[in-house]
């Protein structure tokens, strides 16, 4: 893997990002906004799944929230990759970064499993299953954000 990280961080794009002022600032800002939208939107659906706002139908809510959260996740992954490549080898060696990637994989696997099974019609799951899905989703995505934020404060 060391060769991959080295190739990434010596690429023209990585060097450009790494030495710029406002490009780096812009990508970092985009990353924060994407995460805010991802967590904010997914939390609304998760709260519904857990049992809040029982008067609100789950399916129309999911039809709004899931594409928004998916777009936000895509933006977060792209901006995150651009922030990563500047110091790929260093970040790849951080325990918290590895934990974050593992948590993203777990959160994605959970999400994909749920939607493969139920599509967006989450009311087909039992109330107990929905609550479990909601709790797992909240915990995993929050843990992703927390582990990512802590990289700057623990490693360095």
């Amino acid at each position, binding site marked *: 893997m060391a060769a991959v990280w080295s190739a990434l961080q010596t690429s023209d794009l990585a060097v450009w990002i790494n*030495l710029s002022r406002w490009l*780096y600032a812009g990508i*970092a800002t985009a990353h924060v906004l994407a995460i805010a939208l991802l967590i904010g939107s997914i939390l609304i659906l998760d709260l519904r799944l857990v049992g809040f706002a029982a008067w609100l139908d789950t399916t129309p809510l999911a039809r709004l929230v899931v594409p928004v959260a998916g777009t936000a996740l895509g933006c977060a992954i792209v901006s995150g990759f651009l922030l990563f490549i500047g110091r790929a080898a260093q970040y790849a060696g951080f325990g918290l970064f590895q934990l974050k990637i593992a948590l993203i994989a777990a959160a994605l696997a959970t999400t994909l499993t749920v939607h493969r099974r139920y599509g967006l019609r989450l009311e087909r799951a039992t109330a107990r299953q929905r*609550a479990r899905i909601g*709790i797992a989703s909240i*915990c995993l995505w929050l843990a992703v954000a927390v582990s990512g934020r*802590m990289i700057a404060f623990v490693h*360095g």
Partner: protein
Amino acid sequence: MQRSIWSLLVVGALMLGSVGAAMAHHGWRWTTGGNIEVTGIITAAQLGNPHGVLTVDAEGEVWRVEVGQPWRNERAGLKDGDLKKGVEIRIIGEPSADIKDKRVKAERLYLGDKEYTLYPERD
């Protein structure tokens, strides 16, 4: 509704638990507030965003010196290649509050007699 109250408690506990582990790194909260001076030879330089880090051998003691982002180093008058392996450097800055950490955040530095001020607003 009982179940949702429990799950909110779980989430709240998770968030609270995560805050305790924070150890500041950016900014100045992790430093002592007083300045020290470190003189030595740069043995490694990693420059670029989010900020540069030098490894400095100060007569056998290895210090990690945090310098600026590219724009801050450039504003101080540093040129490409000024901070590189083998260069002798004198740093004035705030050390980590945990002195065993051997980390210092540079406020200004000297290459030879020339002064480069990274943080003009700090003494």
